[in-house]
């Protein structure tokens, strides 16, 4: 058979497949989860194994305000995506900006905490195992927040210049999956570092 022609799809046939954006983002989330798992395991494995001070109990304080801000931003980004789906670009812009501000506050609070730990308490990544695991786990999370905020900022600029249209709601939705992931990882990090580890 030199060349084979295949029948083309019949019009009445229902053929619906999942969105590639969501599948792709879930794959990224799966890979990221594996990365965070390794860092969390290292954190738990090294709890109490530092040969010198300071210990978590000495220096860590619960970052309640920052956590509230970050977790609320999951709600605001959800509202933003919902608004865009309903073609309310103005409301989208406001919710999106609020997400940016809340995420920014979280990052600023992390920065303040680190400044306090480094300059007042003398804890750096090379001080002891607690410093090593603490800065790498919290830092890995903060890195993901930073990447998220950069992407939110780009979309914010596009909104300000009027480039965001209701038909982009699926992209916003795919990004919001990443943001929800970053927020839920914070719940794990918070529990491990500030509750179990302290």
């Amino acid at each position, binding site marked *: *058979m*030199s*060349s*084979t*022609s*295949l*029948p*083309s*799809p*019949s019009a009445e*046939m229902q*053929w619906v*497949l*999942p*969105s*590639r954006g969501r*599948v*792709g983002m879930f*794959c*990224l989330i*799966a*890979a*990221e*989860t*594996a*990365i965070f*798992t*390794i*860092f969390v395991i*290292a954190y738990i*494995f*090294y709890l109490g*194994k*530092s*040969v010198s001070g300071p210990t978590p109990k000495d220096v860590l304080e619960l970052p309640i305000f920052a956590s509230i801000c970050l977790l609320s931003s999951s709600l605001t980004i959800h509202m933003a995506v919902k608004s865009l789906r309903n073609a309310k670009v103005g409301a989208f812009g406001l919710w999106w900006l609020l997400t940016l501000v809340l995420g920014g506050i979280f990052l600023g609070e992390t920065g303040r905490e680190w400044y306090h730990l480094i300059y007042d308490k003398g804890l750096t*990544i*090379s001080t*002891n*195992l607690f*410093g*090593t*695991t603490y*800065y*790498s786990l919290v830092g*890995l999370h903060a890195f993901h927040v930073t990447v998220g905020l950069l992407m939110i900022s780009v979309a914010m600029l596009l909104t300000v210049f009027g480039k965001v249209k209701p038909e982009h709601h699926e992209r916003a939705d795919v990004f919001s999956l990443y943001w929800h992931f970053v927020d839920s990882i914070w719940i794990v990090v918070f529990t491990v570092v500030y509750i179990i580890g302290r």
Partner: protein
Amino acid sequence: MASESIAIGRLDAPARQIGEILHDWVTTVDHKKLGLLYIMYAILFLVIGGIEATIMRIQLIVPHNNFVSPQVFNEMFTMHGTTMIFFVAMPIVFGFGNYFVPLMIGARDMAFPRLNAFSFWISAFGGLLLYFSFVGGNGLYGAGNAPDVGWFAYAPLTAKAFSLGHSTDFWTLGLLVSGIGSIGTATNLIATVLCLRCPGMTLGKMPLFAWMNLVMAGLVLLAVSPLTAAQVMLSLDRYLGAHFFDTQAGGSAVLWMHFFWIFGHPEVYVLVIPAFAFVSEIIPVFSRKPIFGYPIMVGATVSIGFLSFLVWAHHMFTVGMNSYANSFFAISTMLVGVPTGIKIFNWIATMWGGKIRFGTPMLFCIAFLLQFLIAGLTGIMLSVAPFDWQLGNSYFVVAHFHYVIVGGILFGLFGAFYYWFPKMSGRMYNDALSKWHFWLFLIGFHLTFDFMHIPGLLGMPRRIYTYEPGRGWDVWNLIVTIGVFFQGAGILIFVGNLLWSSLKGKFAGNDPWDAWTLEWSTASPPPEYNFATLPTVNSRRPLWDIKHPEDPD
């Protein structure tokens, strides 16, 4: 026919400038070109890694040899292992996945074409970074150049104090960077399989090739990421003075082993599942029967993927774990034999009663079956913890995993090369040369790796750069090294055959094997858009249905 007019259009096209062609390849986002780039890049590194293996075997051909220094020997086994796993095996299976998954599921490209190009180029950059260590690894310390810490780079060898200069950093960064590419490609494969299947191709009608690539991609996501995390930790240790693997400050060298092998063991299945995929396509076509036990094959693949995450510490029996851990990992390792055995029975049952054609792809698949079986049996032997205490880190282990990787994976890959070469190049390979390749490589493989078990049983440890005469190891090492030259000759014939046939071979036509999956329904090589009209399928063998309308599947 649409596909024929396309072929004519190509012949009429004016000859292009070399710069234009190069630009086309560098900027391409076409899954077939990227697949070929992956494959060509891997073949280049296959030759490099093969040369490194040859250097090691020449050093070991007689006792007290001085072919290379101990330092160079250490660099050779490190670079050989790292190259073969990360820059030969992974890109080659990604290349085949990239090229054939969209064609087999009736799609025009991968789900994310630009991510695909990014993944390839960043992986390629990782390989260059690793090999740049030969030039740049000296750093300011004048200590060594290429990494010499072994492919699993146990702590504390990688600590700053024991690994001066930048050689280990090039290793770490090369793997980190290529790992990003692997995760990108895995994401792409999963999204392609789940979101771009042509109408009618439900998951249960998908070719096994696509199924197995889906499982492989899932393993990559969950297995390569821990390695990435561990590499980040190692970099923090080396650059910022962190203490993850620094035993002086309470860190643990064993933790690195766990992190490495939670990647390292699933990685074996990342490589062997695509080999299963090739075999599952070739054996039915060359036995003229549909695959036996399709749903069982899918189930076995998924359970192998699942089990592969529960067995990593069988690489660590000799480290000294407690008896519960030893028992758990011994039993879980033996369990892997169950789904793997099911697969072997299914392939044999597919061949049973078929009209078998002994073309070169089929020869490689039959050799794969036998050799993979033996590799699995020595694997079961090594899963018995007390047996492993005796033979861990000996040449028996080296022989075992080369039986898996060369005797299993590489033979499957060679079968795939010959099977799909007509589709990728549009031309047939030279059959006589392919037979020479098969027999030379088969003889060389068995000379090297059958006899390599024996010095291992006699107590020869791996990674020694020389040995004393009179321990009963001499003659075996001689035979092992002689086998390497047979394999090298086979590889040279293989590469020469590919190059020559892609320019001068006979035209193959669309469907030289009278096969059943969608890639054979389009032109060879396929046009950029793959299918002029997207196909619709009703069964697992869409081309069978078209060729035999009176007897559809």
